[in-house]
């Protein structure tokens, strides 16, 4: 090793780092010790030399990364997928390092070279990052900044970890080691490597993931609303049934009881077939689905219903068709014609009598209707409309940016809005100012949904997370990660225990609110999922998508614990039926109180050339 070379390198290093004092001291020392030959540790010298070399040659990033990539891809299948997990963050950070160091061209060519590996999973992120060309942009762009500032957690087993470490040491790729060290939080799990199924890399969130588990341990009262109509109906029906039974007992006497029981059963079956109009059969079914679901009192003052509406609701409950995996719903489709691509959203009233469409020119059109409904106009305000008067009653201003979604609470009076300004707000109809502002999302809040017991709202965001907020305190109660794209829609199961969310890539996730765990990832749609809805007893989930189809999924079947843990490691929601529409993306879905499914969409035929 040439001494002179080392000396120069050290000097260059000190100069570069701006260690002026050290530099001077070094030169002094150097002058003193020129005569005395000192032994240098060759290893240290090598390190120093490499440092100067690497810093000067951005191509080394490319080289080191492609080496690592080759190594990972040629590793044993057992560990390969675990090792693959680190490739994507390493790739991103290499790219951003290059950008930060000002090697614009090299950064771009590096990106172009390797981006194909990740395009299937992370297309949208790559599109965003592709434009980053200077360190200013890194600071400015939120995705890049959060990636730079936070470590990504990657789980791997002990052996994979050892393999990786050995590789990084043996090949002297201190560059990669540095990247891994700086930006990746390797979480070593004991035991066997995890199977492919959990290889759900999840989104690359640039935020501390420890927070997730912390947040998700908070206690949630996920039960159904106490004293809700359903509750009342159930009680009433149960009372009726008991009464009928008692009467029957009296009339028939003991010896005929057995006979009667059989006849009753037969009768029950019959009635079931005729979509269960009698209270007796209904009682059994409602209790079977909702038994054991705790009741929760709402912390919000509730509006009081009129006798009339209550009676009607009970009527609906009695006439509800029973749905299950073998009894699929009927779907009534509302097609908007001649919209010229201007329909932005649509909503259907629960009884299907009204359909409203929101158009690009900020107009609302209501078809065939009698009651009032709410919709949002295009820019930064929420308006309340009264349909009988066809007048705008109130304009709620508060958001600074466009409002993406508005939802009324299940009992009315309150509503929640989601906006581009990264907040969700809770309002009541009688105040022009919001009651609560939920802040915490890192990007636009794209959709909002009330929990059935009105104590929580869920929000889906462009930062690929879904959060659950306590309405009373405004606190974030749950943080769900797993989506790979913007969350486009949310739906709560009627018993308040589960939540479904759909994203722009066509994936649907089912979450258990109590435990904060993902239950079933669900793939099938090829276009963005625009809308989701649970059937009234929560047995089915309907989804509508940009791929021109309505799909119906079996919820109950997916919730059952798998019999053999190993084989059914992935529990996917079972797809029961795909109902393709004719060139009509499905914008809105809603189960009526009687379990008829309404769907709406704009007919958008391919243009003939």
């Amino acid at each position, binding site marked *: 090793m040439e001494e002179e070379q080392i000396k120069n390198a050290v000097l260059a290093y000190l100069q570069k780092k701006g260690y002026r004092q050290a530099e001077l001291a070094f030169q002094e020392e150097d002058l003193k010790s020129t005569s005395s030959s000192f032994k240098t540790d060759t290893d240290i010298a090598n390190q120093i030399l490499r440092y100067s070399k690497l810093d000067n040659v951005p191509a080394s990033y490319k080289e080191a990364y492609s080496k690592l990539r080759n190594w990972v891809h040629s590793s044993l299948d057992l560990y390969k997928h675990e090792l693959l997990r680190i490739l994507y963050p390493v790739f991103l950070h290499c790219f951003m390092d290059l950008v930060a160091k000002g090697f*614009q061209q090299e950064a*771009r*060519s590096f990106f172009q070279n390797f981006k194909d590996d990740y395009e299937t999973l992370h297309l949208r992120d790559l*599109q*965003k990052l*592709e*434009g*980053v*060309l*200077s360190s*200013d*942009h890194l600071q400015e*762009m939120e995705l890049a900044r959060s990636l730079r500032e936070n470590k990504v957690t990657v789980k791997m087993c002990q052996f994979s970890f050892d393999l990786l470490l050995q590789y990084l040491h043996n090949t002297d790729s201190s560059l990669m080691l540095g990247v891994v060290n700086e930006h990746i939080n390797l979480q070593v799990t004991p035991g066997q490597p995890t199977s492919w199924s959990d290889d759900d890399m999840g989104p690359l969130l640039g935020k501390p993931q420890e927070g997730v588990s912390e947040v998700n341990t908070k206690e949630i009262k996920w039960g159904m609303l106490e004293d809700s109509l359903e509750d009342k109906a159930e009680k009433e029906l149960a009372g009726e049934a008991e009464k009928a039974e008692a009467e029957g007992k009296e009339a028939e006497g003991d010896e005929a009881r057995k006979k009667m029981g059989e006849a009753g059963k037969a009768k029950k079956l019959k009635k079931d077939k005729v979509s269960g109009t009698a209270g007796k059969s209904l009682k059994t079914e409602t209790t079977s689905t909702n038994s054991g679901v705790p009741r929760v009192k709402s912390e919000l003052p509730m509006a009081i219903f009129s006798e009339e509406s209550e009676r009607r609701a009970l009527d609906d409950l009695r006439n509800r068709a029973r749905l299950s995996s*073998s*009894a*699929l*719903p*009927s*779907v*009534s*489709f*509302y*097609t*908007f*014609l*001649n*919209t*010229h*691509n201007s*329909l*932005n*959203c649509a909503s259907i009233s629960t009884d299907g009598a009204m359909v409203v*469409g929101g*158009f*690009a020119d900020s107009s609302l*059109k209501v*078809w*065939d209707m009698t009651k009032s409904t709410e919709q949002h106009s295009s820019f930064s305000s929420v308006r309340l409309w009264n349909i009988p008067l066809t007048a705008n009653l109130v304009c709620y201003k508060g958001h600074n940016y*466009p409002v*993406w979604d508005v939802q009324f609470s299940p009992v009315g009076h309150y509503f929640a809005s989601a906006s*581009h300004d990264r907040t969700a707000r809770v309002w009541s109809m009688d105040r022009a100012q919001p009651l609560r502002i939920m802040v915490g999302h890192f990007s*636009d809040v*794209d959709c909002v949904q009330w929990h059935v017991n009105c104590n929580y709202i869920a929000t889906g965001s*462009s930062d690929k997370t879904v959060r659950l907020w306590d309405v009373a305190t405004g606190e974030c109660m749950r943080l769900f990660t797993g989506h790979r794209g913007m969350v*486009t829609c949310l739906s709560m199961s009627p018993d308040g225990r589960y939540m479904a969310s759909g994203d722009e890539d066509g994936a649907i996730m089912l979450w258990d609110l109590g435990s904060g765990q993902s239950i079933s990832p669900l793939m099938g749609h090829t*276009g*963005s999922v*625009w809308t989701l809805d649970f059937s009234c007893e929560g047995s089915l989930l309907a989804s509508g998508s*940009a791929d*021109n189809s*309505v799909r119906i999924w079996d919820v109950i079947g997916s919730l059952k614990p798998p019999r053999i843990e190993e084989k059914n490691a992935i529990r996917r929601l079972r797809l*029961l*039926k795909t*109902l*393709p*529409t*004719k060139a009509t*993306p499905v*914008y809105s879905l809603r189960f009526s109180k009687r379990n008829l499914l309404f*769907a709406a969409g704009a007919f958008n035929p391919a243009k003939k050339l």
Partner: protein
Amino acid sequence: MTILLKETVQTIAQSIGINNLPEEVAEALAPDVEYRMREIMQGAIKCMLHSKRTTLTTEDVNSALQLHNIEFKRAVGQSDLFYVDDAEIDFKELMDAPLPKAPLDTAVVIHWLAIEGVQPAIPENVPLEAFTPSVELKKIDTLLSKKKDDEFGVEVKLPVKHVLSQELQVYFEKITGLIISRANPSLIKAALDSLATDSGLHPLVPYFTQFIADEVVRNLDDIDLLFSLMRVVRSLLINPHIHIDPYLHQLMPSVITCLVAKRLGRKSAENSAPGRKFIDNHWDLRDYVANLISFICRRFGRVYHNLQPRITKTLLQAFLDPKRAMTQHYGAIKGLAALGPRVVGLTVLPNVETFLKHLAPDLSMEAQRSEMKRNEAMRVYGTLLTAIGVCMTSRLKYFPVFFLPRTWNPGGQGKIVTARRTVVSNSLSDSCTVSQLTNTSPRKTTTSADAQDSQPMEIECIGHSYHSSMSTIELPSQDVKSDAKIVVDVSGMDHSQHQSQDMARSREQVEPSDSDKAIFPLSDSWKEDVTLGPLFSSLIDLFGEALLPFVPRTELNIFL
């Protein structure tokens, strides 16, 4: 490296009046401008997603700009920008113009996407690819055996009771009424278009097949109606929303009938002038049906492996049976030809010689007195020639080596042409037929260049018209003309019009030796298909140089 070049930035700077923007500044600005642009486009994508669309529009970009609080300056007025120019309209003109048609208003229609999980087959729904078992069946299926969860092992039985909606009944009556009443062509065309494109017609298919079968049997003498019916068949076949397979076997007899029936169209007195029209017509019908059959074989041949063999067999029977009428032979040959050159090679080629022998008496003026019969025989001959020719062309095309003009023999030119001349007269046996075909009065000239001139021309023209119908072969008409010209030149060699058969024979014997020269050495190079050479020469024996137009141009080099 960036999409935006620094030159672009400089140009933009100049356009707003900064003339001397330093290069370094431009270089530094370019990536930033690109970044901003991408940012806006990503905002636009967000707006698009929130509008629940999948195509990005300019409106989205505008919204994104608004989102970023950027005021968008309209591009109008810049000379180097592309934009949609709004033309200035005179106010008076605008006032005088009639009111434009109002755009269709947005409307909402309701239909059943599914009833208890089953999609009804209505026009509003996506046409079903095939019938899926009903829910009841599925239920039973799952109850019976849970293992058969994926496959519906039970045979699908369509419900016996067939309920037709009122609309479909009206539709059926309208269409059938139109066809039977022979309404004006534009109406019928509209009906056929609707049949070919509308979805939701599937329930009507059995009724249509029945209707076609009935009407064909009942109206064999009505050529126009038959034609319409065949067009209906075609429309039904090309409709992508109709699952016609189960009804194909009911349609095929009617179709085949229209191809090889002994008599199609009205029975007419042979000499009466109006009768002629119908006779001419039925050839067209047969041609049309032949194409239809080839279409059916192409589309359904893969699903029903015995479909084409069965059709071929039927046609071949008609072709081989000497007792059949000329019209039947015509239909059979036409049908076989439409099935492709391979089929022709397998079925027609081996039987050409016997068939020609059988045909010969009808072709000759002496043996066949009836003009119409002769006419028919000529037609059959023409089709046969075309079929064989196309078959040969396709074979020759497989062997490009064959075309190399290796045995170019300039001296042979005259000889071949002579030979051709003889063969033409031979095969037709009487050139008068040709002129009779075209010119109503037979010519009586004995030795005239004019007659010679018109004769080969006509032959070529007949051949040519077939080319266009076959569409597999494209012979430029120039070739035909030059052929004819050569003949005209040679016609100075003074051949008598009524050449005796013997004379022709003797000439013919000269001819093969000549063509052999060209072909045999080549066939040697052709180990794979040794038969091709001899086959070709034997065909030339039979047909004469009328086959030559079917030889591709490069191949013609050998002879000319």
